[in-house]
């Protein structure tokens, strides 16, 4: 019998009653169904009828007749034709130093500053720059030379602070970029800009773009994983949150999956008591079937994401315990990463996990370490921060290298901005603080097609302005995408009337000098 187009809800298809679930549940459903069904469906039919009489009836009928055509096929690596060219890196690991590490205390060696201790920074250096509210009221801007010495490391003699002896050991494997610079001076916009290419919340982050553009290498683990480092209460911890690994307007299956730093890495991953794998599977099949019906009814692509996420969670029940089981790691691993690595949630532990994720085909891993926001007491805090991160980062790069994974794994180390050469608040021989500084900061990259053992970019004598080879955030991100085989102008998604991309609307360029 041919149905009226407004009555598609009465079509015969598989119903809940056909599903492989308990009869009791079916009964319960049937009871609920009668009232809910009547009210819900009746309301909808009335709505359609009203809409049809208001506007062009045919348009509505068209909608009703072809529900499957309501949503256009979603873009995928297939339709995007990615990678655009053969990539150097298959995957990337991003060590995010949240808070803004002070470049002149770690990498940007400025020996001339020693003689200028506690003298006023020349106005010409700062120019007309607006400072943050935290130091703009200061009557003077006393220069604070770094408290620590620097040594040259590696074949090219890269200058690295005594705070980072392990990083010094891998100087020949990393490309230090001293001329990175950003447009934002405060944490939230700066960290968003770094991660999403836009200061406003709501855009997809780098990992989501990679997941969307390149897809998964291992269906049993998320494409994009995030690990938080346990917070050190003595440090000034700026908050981080899931908006930093959000998929923005991309489908939510591209959002980062964050592992907890203590306890179960993923909550509720284990089956509850009395539920075995077979029951869980049966339940998921039923949920998936219901979701599929909802999708057919409403055509909302987010329903697909939901189905995919249930399936991923199910597979993670076996893959995550295997991933986090460090019992088979040889002694050499612990010798390399240090004793910290045995404690879940430490930076070293996360670095070891990142290596294991790289081995298991996770496309993008991001490790956050907070606490770099050293407005005060930098002399006390920096040895702590460096002690927590230096060895882990070195161990990760070295481990990837010896295992032959650094060839196709890109490692990135970066904060969201740098810090001022002048001291925030007072300055003594023993201590100083540093405010946010967007005009220059130091980052490094390693592996995955990046030229090893180079130092790129120069700042002025005050580590305040870039004087050579500026690398704005958009170029930094364009270069990361290039290593992964992506032309940053071609990885786009239409949203809000714009072909959105990670590098934004200001023209960006790949920094060729950093590439092999």
């Amino acid at each position, binding site marked *: 019998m041919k149905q009226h187009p407004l009555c598609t809800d009465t079509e015969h298809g598989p119903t809940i009653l056909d599903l492989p679930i308990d009869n009791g549940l079916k009964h319960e459903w049937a009871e609920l169904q009668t009232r809910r069904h009547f009210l819900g469906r009746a309301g909808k039919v009335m709505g359609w009828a009203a809409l049809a009489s208001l506007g062009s009836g045919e348009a509505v009928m068209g909608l009703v007749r072809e529900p499957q055509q309501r949503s256009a096929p979603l873009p995928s690596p297939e339709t995007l034709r990615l990678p655009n060219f053969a990539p150097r890196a298959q995957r990337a690991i991003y060590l995010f130093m949240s808070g803004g590490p002070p470049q002149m205390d770690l990498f940007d060696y400025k020996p001339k500053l020693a003689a200028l201790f506690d003298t006023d920074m020349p106005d010409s250096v700062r120019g007309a720059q607006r400072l943050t509210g935290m130091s703009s009221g200061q009557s003077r801007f006393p220069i604070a030379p770094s408290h620590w010495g620097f040594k040259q490391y590696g074949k090219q003699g890269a200058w690295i602070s005594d705070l980072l002896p392990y990083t010094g050991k891998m100087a020949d494997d990393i490309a230090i970029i001293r001329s990175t610079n950003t447009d934002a001076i405060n944490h939230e916009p700066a960290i968003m800009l770094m991660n999403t290419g836009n200061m406003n919340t709501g855009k997809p982050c780098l990992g989501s773009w990679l997941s969307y553009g390149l897809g998964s290498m291992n269906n049993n683990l998320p494409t994009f994983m995030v690990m938080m480092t346990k917070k050190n209460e003595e440090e000034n911890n700026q908050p981080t949150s899931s908006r930093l690994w959000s998929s923005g307007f991309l489908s939510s299956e591209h959002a980062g999956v964050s592992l907890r730093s203590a306890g179960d890495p993923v909550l509720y991953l284990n089956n509850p008591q009395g539920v075995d794998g077979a029951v869980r599977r049966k339940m998921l099949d039923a949920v998936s079937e219901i979701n599929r019906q909802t999708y057919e009814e409403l055509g909302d692509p987010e329903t697909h994401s939901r189905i995919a996420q249930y399936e991923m969670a199910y597979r993670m029940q076996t893959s995550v315990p295997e991933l986090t089981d460090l019992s088979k790691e040889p002694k050499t691993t612990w010798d390399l990463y240090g004793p910290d690595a045995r404690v879940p949630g430490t930076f070293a532990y996360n670095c070891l996990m990142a290596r294991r994720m790289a081995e298991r085909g996770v496309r993008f891993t991001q490790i956050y370490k907070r606490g770099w926001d050293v407005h005060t007491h930098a002399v006390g805090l920096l040895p702590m921060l460096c002690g927590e991160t230096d060895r882990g980062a070195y161990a990760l790069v*070295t481990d990837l290298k010896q*295992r032959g994974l650094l*060839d196709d794994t890109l490692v990135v180390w970066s904060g969201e901005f740098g810090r001022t050469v002048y001291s925030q608040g007072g300055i003594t021989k023993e201590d100083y603080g540093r405010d946010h500084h967007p005009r220059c900061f130091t980052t490094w990259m390693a592996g995955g097609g990046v030229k090893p053992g180079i130092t790129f970019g120069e700042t002025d004598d005050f580590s305040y302005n870039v004087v050579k080879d500026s690398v704005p955030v958009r170029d930094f991100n364009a270069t990361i995408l290039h290593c992964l085989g992506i032309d940053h102008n071609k990885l786009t998604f239409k949203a809000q009337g714009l072909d959105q991309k990670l590098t934004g609307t200001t023209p960006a360029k790949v920094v060729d000098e950093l590439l092999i």
Partner: protein
Amino acid sequence: MSSVTQVGPQTSQENESVQPASTRSKWMLVCVSAFLLLALLWAFAPDGQAHASWQQFLGRFHPLAVHLPIGLLLLVPVLEIGGRFRPSLREAAGFVLVCAAVCSIGAVVLGMLLAHGGGFAKEAVRGHMWAGLILTIAVITCTFLRSSWITGRSSFLYPVVLLAVLALTAWTGHQGGALTYGKTYLTEFAPAFIKQLEPHKTYPPVDPVSVYVTRIQPILDSNCITCHSGAKVKGGLQLDTYAHLMDGGSSGEVIAASHPEKSLLFTRITLPAEHPKFMPSEGKPPLTAKDIAWIRAWVQQGASPSSTTLVGMELKPAHIDDPIPQVGDYSGLTSQIEQIESSLGIKLDRVSAKPADGLVLRTIGVSQKFDDADLAKLEPLAPYIVDAELGHTKVTDNSFATLAKMPHLRAIHLEETSIDGRNIKQLTGLAELRYLNLSSTRVTKQALSDIAPLKTLQHIYSYNTPAAPVPVP
């Protein structure tokens, strides 16, 4: 016919008495008007700079006004010849000629305003201007010659000058048309046999690795050709090929080799952005300083189509990855690939959007069960696999035989497998293999020496194996 020929002499007889004085004053008039026109030229010399906008406003009526004297001039010979049969037509000819002279003067004045006000200075404009001036003076001369021709005193001067005027009209008109529509406008869609007659400038051949091809044409391609090639040829200028570039446009040649400051192509892109003549026009983004520097250096150093170096410019090649060997096109095998993927639970990812870059075999999702037999099932796709990621799987040394059948393998991952490398010799036939990962396997020193003959191998990893005792960090 004989009666008609008498008309001239009869009229002349009537005017005989006044002739000497009026002739002199007429010639004075010709000289004065010629002098005035030349003075105009001096006042409104086209010097290459734009002037008052009222000049341009009036000047832009030149293309409109110019057609009136042309029409009138063409009518004169018709009337003169027709006058042989109908005398009334001949009487009209004199009047029409005077009208043509007056209109010519008007058109010339407007033309000068256009050239002066609009800042035209090129050869083509000068040529057109001089031709127009001479034509106007010739027309004025004609009006006076005609009266003596009517009286029969000089029987050949007037027809000769009139003929010259007509020829000059055609020539000047053509020049003007070329200025407005471009040199190639007339002949663009001409049949081949006409095109052959067209004089063709020949240029030296373009070298595919020259600075022109690698640096200059790309700048033109991304900034200029939307308005200067194909269907849209603004200003008669096409910038899509070297020959078109050198041909120039309505305003003449745009490249003066070795003289960027005299090259329109260069001067127009370096004007202030708000200048009406600035290029790219219509608010399109200006060229970058780098692009401009390239164009300047290239023109300065001869605008050559074949030179591969430019003094003072760093010719850093665009970033090109090592060329990777190409494999066959697998795009026809999509269904077979998908079928193998789903039956084995593996992934066969393309290296890039270009099928010739090959496929990557990923087994990490099924590493717990992927074994030699599974690998053997991939044989139909052997020619397309360039990267075999078999780490953490159950493959054994028996798999080397299958791997050896994949001629385009560039990378093999065998880390964390149980192989010991006894059959590794079989890989020595893989001429493109560059990367071999044997970390955390049972591979021996003997196996490493077995693989040594493979000279293409750049990276071999044997961390945590009997072959390489683990270094203590």
